[in-house]
């Protein structure tokens, strides 16, 4: 069966202006959201603090929880209902905060609601220095991955190909972070893991196209590079749509069925797969073309 007709010939390269504008708009919306909200919303992994997740007998009244905590001086906690009967309580990390704050919170709830009506599901406490440590590591890991990939693509193809790849990656990351901010999602370590996965995955796509470009260049060395690139994209379109399709199906399953623990993680993956596919087609290749001076004869652009 063929979803994409074999002889397809869409002119992707000429659509690049539209694509760039579209991307720019989304990037700006994302950055705008970040600016307005004062930066990304860091989870405790990065900001430090305490998270207590409690399961109740029946759906609890958040207001009641808030007042119970407020009475004991913990009114600054952020209470989030996780659907059904679960509630997540977050406290910022403070100088004098003892590491038993989570015990106190649970004790208060037990007292207010009754011993057998509440059960402690999850406690996470991250001291401020560990949080800062994680932030540093998180950013470093993304940088390292990008450098590693830049080197790899340069070795396997050529530097201008690597430029296109990196442009697509930066584009993907910025948009994903922006969307996260827009939807008020939290940045935790697993989300960074998702980002790195997106980097790897987006590159998958990009390399398949690059591979085809290289093969076509060898086959028709006298052809204009722009034409070669466009043909390559068209030829790999079928595979790109298919793989993205199946990956999306699979990640959607995770998102819907996976539960609240990896919810944000799978959300990041969904955004990443969509953006990654888009960028492989509309960002990586045009940038690759722009990497040299004007339209270069295909033969001279590849070893």
């Amino acid at each position, binding site marked *: *069966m063929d979803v994409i007709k074999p002889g397809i010939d869409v002119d992707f390269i000429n659509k690049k202006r539209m694509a760039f504008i579209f991307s720019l708009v989304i990037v700006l919306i994302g950055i705008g959201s970040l600016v307005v909200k004062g930066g990304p919303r860091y989870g405790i992994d990065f900001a430090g603090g305490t998270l207590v997740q409690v399961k109740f007998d029946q759906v609890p009244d958040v207001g009641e929880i808030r007042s119970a905590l407020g009475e004991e001086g913990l009114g600054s906690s952020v209470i989030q209902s996780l659907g059904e009967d679960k509630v997540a309580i977050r406290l910022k990390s403070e100088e004098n905060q003892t*590491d038993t704050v989570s015990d106190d919170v649970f004790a208060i709830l037990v007292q207010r609601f009754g011993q057998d009506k509440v059960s402690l599901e999850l406690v996470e406490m991250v001291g401020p220095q560990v949080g800062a440590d994680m932030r540093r590591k998180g950013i470093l890991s993304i940088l390292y991955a990008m450098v590693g*990939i830049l080197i790899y693509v340069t070795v396997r193809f050529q530097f201008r190909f690597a430029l296109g790849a990196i442009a697509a990656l930066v584009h993907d990351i910025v948009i994903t972070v922006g969307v996260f901010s827009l939807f008020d999602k939290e940045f935790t370590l697993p989300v960074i893991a998702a980002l790195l*996965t997106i980097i790897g995955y987006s590159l*998958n796509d990009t390399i398949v196209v690059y591979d*085809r470009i290289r093969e076509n260049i060898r086959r028709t060395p006298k052809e204009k590079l722009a034409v070669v690139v466009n043909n390559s994209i068209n030829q790999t379109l079928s595979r790109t749509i298919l793989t993205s399709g*199946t990956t999306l199906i699979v*990640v959607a399953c995770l998102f819907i069925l996976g539960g609240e623990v990896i919810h944000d993680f799978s959300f990041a*993956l969904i955004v990443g797969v969509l953006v990654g596919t888009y960028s492989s087609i509309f960002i990586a290749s045009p940038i690759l073309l722009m990497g040299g001076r004007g339209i270069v004869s295909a033969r001279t652009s590849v070893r």
Partner: protein
Amino acid sequence: MRTRVKTRLIIVFIVLIGALVSVTPSLTGSLPGWWTKILPSKAIQLGLDLKGGMELLLEVQTDEAVNNGLSRVASDLKTIFKDRKIRLRRAETTGFNRLVVEVRREKYRDDAMTVIREEFPGTIVTENSETKVIVSYPESEIKRIRENAVVQAVETIRSRVDEFGVTEPTILRQGESRILIQLPGVEDPQRAITLIKRSAVLKFMLVDEGASPDSVPFGDVVLYGKDYDAATKRVRRTPYVVEDRILLTGDTIKDARVRYDSQYGQPYVSLTFDSVGARIFEQVTGDHVKERLAIVLDENVYSAPVIQERISGGQASISGSFTADEATDLAIVLRAGSLPAPVKILQKWTVSPSLGSDSIRKGLMSIVFGFSLVIVFMVFYFRLSGIVANIALVMNLIIIMAVLAVFQATLTLPGIAGIVLTIGMAVDANVLIFERIKEELRTGKTVRAAIDGGYGKALLTIVDANVTTLIAALVLFQFGTGQVKGFAVTLSVGVLASMFTAIFVSRVIFEAYLENRTLNELSI
């Protein structure tokens, strides 16, 4: 059948059987005796987020260990100076690595310095003013104290945790002064944390009967005891004025057991001293009959019983209003020894077993659903060749599980997500190959030639594309914590397995099928 195809088919079968065998322990609880002897018998290790349990990252406050050392010097100096008739105004630690010794008259200062140098040769003694002397440790000694503190802390915590009875605890030193503790499946994480964190410094000191807490005489210090008043249900703090002299410490305790008092059935802790401790105890009790001996634990006065007579058996008991749990924990902590320096909790993570099994269930459902959808899609799009791809996919999953089991890599919830992701991405390799085969067919090649061409051309692309995912996974493994490491592992294993199954296994199936047949058309 040609030998080449035959060999390959055999390889595939060996891998399949090997994988199935490795996975079996994870599926059944009980394996027959003969199995455990020769075949792999370890089930997949579940991470804390799937099993429930607790993880702690502690930091040993080594600065305090250094200061504690100087405090002990100060304490000893008070006794020594008294004997040598050097009149002391004060001996106190201030800041870091700084013991200030102040004598009453200038004439005592030089003698004091000489005495300190004699008794504590490892220290640096400098004069600060006519009456003050500063005692501090040299760099080498500080380093040694810090190192010892961490090593001892790890050992002490290990003994305490061992007694607590958790299966397969992990206690690892991390870096210079951090300790990572993992207690899978622990029932009462709060109790475990209290047990681990306690300094458990036990001191025996004399109560100064005549003194009042409002005007504390020189050489004494006020410590508080906590008494739980059952009547008012409140905790009272009672002040005790004790002589600031440590007569005996918990280091000399050989054993500590929980016993029950015959009269009321109340639990108490019975201590047994070693020979040195027994001797000192005998002397102390003999010298101070009818005085009160304060038993101080972590600067809290647990009890201050009156010494009735000289005690020479080397046995003592600590009683107070304990619950059985408190007594047990106290005994554990006294047996294991005190922590050389306080530990600070940098990071804490507890997952209840119920949430863990919830996560497993949800993770498995995602795998099942995702897998089913992909399988259906593959047949729908690639028809019969899709079935070949599906066989490869099934084998892929089994191989991933097998590798996890054999290498005892931990499976976490993100790890399960990694498996789900691999299912989606494993399709990629097959798609690359099949689309290529379709192209070859379109150019008019025979079925066999098309298949060969498809696999040949797609190979390099598959490798290139997957290497980048592996680079990302490698970076993740380096920088991530346990949960994320689990994801990196399953992702890497999944990518490698999918390369193997797509390139090798599915091709073998095609070739085996084509062996003695000539197809004019391929269902792809």
